[in-house]
C-alpha cells in the first residue's frame, strides 16, 4: 500500500497527548511514529530506559501508553526487553498467550550509546526478537545537557562547556549505527523526522516486522539542549540530512543502502547556525572549527557512500 501520512494519522493513537515532554522535543514524535507503524491488530510491550521520555510519559499514576509498558533502569532497556520477548516466546509456545505481540525498547543516547551499550550489544548478539529505538538527542538531556558519546565535536554541553580554554566537546560523535551493524543483525537503520515521515515510517515498519534484533537510530532534536525554537524541529531534521550530518541509510540483511542522497550537499553552517550549542563556532577567529566540522562530515559521508557502493 502506498504510504500516505494522512491515512496513518487516522489510526488510533497509541501514545496519548498530555504527557510532559517539552514542546519541540523529538522523543514523542519518535514514539508516536514507531507505534503508528504497528499493525492495528498487533499488541506491543514497550520497554523504556530511564530518560526524559520515561519520566515524562509514565508519571505515577498516569501512563501515556495504550500498550503494556515497562521501565526498569538506565542501563538495561535491551536486557529487560529481551526478558519480555523470551517470556512471550515461552508463553506463546505453551498456548498461554494468544495475541501477536511486538517488543520495542526506547532509549535516549545516554541509555544507548553509553551506559546501556553492553546490554544492547548482548541483546543484539543474541538476536533477541525486538526493535531497539534510540532517540538520539546528542546529550544527557534529562539530567541537564551533559555530554554523551553521541554529542558531536564542538557542542557546548554542561560537562563539555565552552570557555576561555575550551571550544566545547573535544571528541567526535560515536558511530553507534555502524557498531550495531557490526553485530550482523537483520536490520539496522538511521532515520529522522523529515517531510511526510515516509522514511521514518517505512524503517519502523521493516524493523517491527523483521524477525530478530532490529535497531533504529533516530536523530531526535532537543530544544533545550540544542537551543532552537520549538517550531524549527522539522527544519533542523531536514538540514541534518541535507548537510549529511545525519545520513538516512539502512542495512537490511547485510545490504547497505543510502536512502537519500542530496542533490547538492548543503554546507554544515546551515545546520550549525540554527543552534545555540554551536554559537561559539561562528565567532571571529573560530572559523577553523567550522572547517574542521565540515571536513569530518565530508569524510564520514564519503566513507558511507563507499561502504554502500554508491558511485
Amino acid at each position: 500500500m502506498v504510504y500516505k501520512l494522512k491515512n496513518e494519522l487516522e489510526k488510533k493513537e497509541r501514545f496519548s497527548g498530555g504527557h510532559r515532554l517539552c514542546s519541540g522535543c523529538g522523543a514523542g514524535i519518535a514514539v508516536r511514529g514507531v507505534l503508528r507503524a504497528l499493525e492495528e491488530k498487533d499488541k506491543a510491550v514497550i520497554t523504556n530506559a530511564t530518560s526524559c521520555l520515561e519520566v515524562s510519559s509514565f508519571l505515577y499514576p498516569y501512563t501515556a501508553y495504550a500498550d503494556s509498558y515497562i521501565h526498569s533502569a538506565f542501563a538495561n532497556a535491551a536486557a529487560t526487553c529481551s526478558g519480555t520477548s523470551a517470556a512471550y516466546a515461552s508463553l506463546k509456545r505453551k498456548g498461554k498467550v494468544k495475541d501477536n505481540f511486538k517488543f520495542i525498547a526506547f532509549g535516549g543516547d545516554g541509555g544507548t550509546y553509553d551506559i546501556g551499550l553492553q546490554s544492547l550489544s548482548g541483546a543484539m548478539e543474541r538476536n533477541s526478537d525486538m526493535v531497539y529505538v534510540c532517540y538520539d538527542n546528542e546529550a544527557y538531556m534529562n539530567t541537564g545537557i551533559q555530554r554523551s558519546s553521541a554529542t558531536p565535536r564542538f557542542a557546548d554541553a554542561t560537562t563539555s562547556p565552552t570557555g576561555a580554554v575550551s571550544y566545547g566537546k573535544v571528541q567526535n560523535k560515536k558511530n553507534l549505527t555502524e557498531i550495531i551493524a557490526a553485530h550482523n543483525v537483520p536490520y539496522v537503520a538511521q532515520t529522522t523526522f523529515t517531510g511526510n515521515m515516509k522514511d521514518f515510517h517505512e524503517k519502523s515498519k521493516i524493523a517491527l516486522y523483521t524477525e530478530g534484533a532490529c535497531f533504529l537510530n533516530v536523530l531526535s532534536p532537543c530544544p533545550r539542549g540544542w537551543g532552537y525554537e520549538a517550531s524549527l524541529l522539522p527544519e533542523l531534521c531536514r538540514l541534518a540530512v541535507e548537510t549529511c550530518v545525519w545520513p538516512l541509510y539502512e542495512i537490511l540483511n547485510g545490504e547497505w543502502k543510502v536512502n537519500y542522497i542530496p542533490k547538492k550537499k548543503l554546507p554544515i553552517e546551515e545546520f550549525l547556525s540554527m543552534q545555540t550549542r554551536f554559537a561559539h563556532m561562528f565567532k571571529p577567529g573560530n572559523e577553523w572549527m567550522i572547517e574542521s566540522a565540515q571536513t569530518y562530515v565530508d569524510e564520514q559521508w564519503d566513507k558511507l557512500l563507499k561502504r554502500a557502493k554508491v558511485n
Partner: protein
Amino acid sequence: MARKDKMSGNEAVATAMRQIEPDVMAAFPITPSTEIPQYYSKFIADGKVDTEFIAVESEHSAMSACMGASAAGARAVTATSSAGLAYMWEVLYIVASSSLPVVMAVVNRALSAPININNDHSDSMGARDTGWIQLYAESNQEVYDNYIQAFSIAEACRLPVMVCQDGFITSHGVSNIELLEDSEVKDFVGEYMPADYLLKSENPLAIGPFGVSSYYMEIKRKQAESMKASMPIITEVADKYAKLSGRQYSFFEEYMMDDADIALLIIGSSAGTAKATVNLLRSEGKKVGLIKLRVFRPFPRESLAKAMCKVKAVAIMDKAESFSNSGGPLFSEARSSLYDLPNKPYAINYIYGLGGRDITVEHFCEIYNDLFAIIDSNDPGDVYRYIGVRDSRFK
C-alpha cells in the same frame, strides 16, 4: 514417593529447577554458581525442559531480563554469586519494588578485594536491604527443599526470593539427598497464574513509573508491609511442604536449646560443625545449644529474641563483615531484637570464615568456653570479636 540420591548443592538446585521447569532462565557464569546454568542448559539441550534460556552478557542484564520476563507473566529464575550479585544491585531493588516473584539461587562467595572465590556471606548480606526474601541452607537437602518452597513463597507474597547456600561447601560437596518425584514438585509449585502481567491482552500493564514525593512514601510503606505479610506465608508453605516431604522447616531451627545455658546463633553450612561441637560438649555435661537461622529476610525478630532469651549468653556468628564498627549484619539485627526484652542474654559477635577460612570444632569450643567465662564473670568484654584470624591483635 521420595527418591534417594547423592549430589552437590548446585546439582540439587538444578534438579529442583528441572522439576519446576520455569518459563525463562537468564544467567551469566560466575564461580561457584556457574554449574547451575550449566546443568540447566544441558537439560534444555536434551529436551528435558521447555524453558527459554537467555545467555546474557552480564549479571546486571541477567536480573534485568528476569525482571522483563517476570513482568511479562513468566516464571523467571537466575543464579549467581559474589561480584555477580553485586553487579545486579540496582536491579535487585527494582525487581523487589515492582513486586516481581523472581527466584534466584545465590551460591555465597566472598566479595573482592582481594579477589577470592571461596565462601562467606558478604554477597547476600550486602543485599539484605534490597527487599528480597532470603532463605539460607545448612545442607544440600535444605537448599533443595528451600528452592522448591521459594516459588510458592515468592508468588504468594509477590516478592522475589534468594535461595542461598554456601559456595563450594554445599554447592560442590556431594552428599546424600532425598528428592521428591517430578510430579510432586510440579503439583506443589502449581501453575504460575499472575493477576496482572504485560502480555495480558485484555488489560495492558505499566510497570516502573516515575513516582514523585507525593506517592513514593506510600509505595515504600506498602512494600515494607508486604515483607511483614510474608511471615505467615513462609510458615504456611513450610507446613505444606512438611506434609509432602516429611521435612519441617521454620524461620530457624533450635538445637539442644531447651535446657541450654549458652548458645550460638549461626547461618548456613557451619551450623553442621557447630552442632557437632554441641554434641561433644553435651557429652561432657555442658549445657550448650544452637540456633540456626534459615530466614534472614523477613527477620523473625520477636520469635528469635524469645529463643535467644532461653540462654544467658549467645554468640552471634557473622560470616560477613559490615565495616560498621558495631559488628556484622546478623549481630546488629539479632542484638537489636533483644532490646525490648527484660531479661536479655549477653550477646557477643564473632566474625568468622571470611573468604573460605575454615571454622572447626576447636573454634566453636573456644567460643562456648568464652561464653561460659562471660556468664561466670558477668563481664562480656569486647562484644565485637573475630575467630580464626591469625593475627592475635585482631581476635
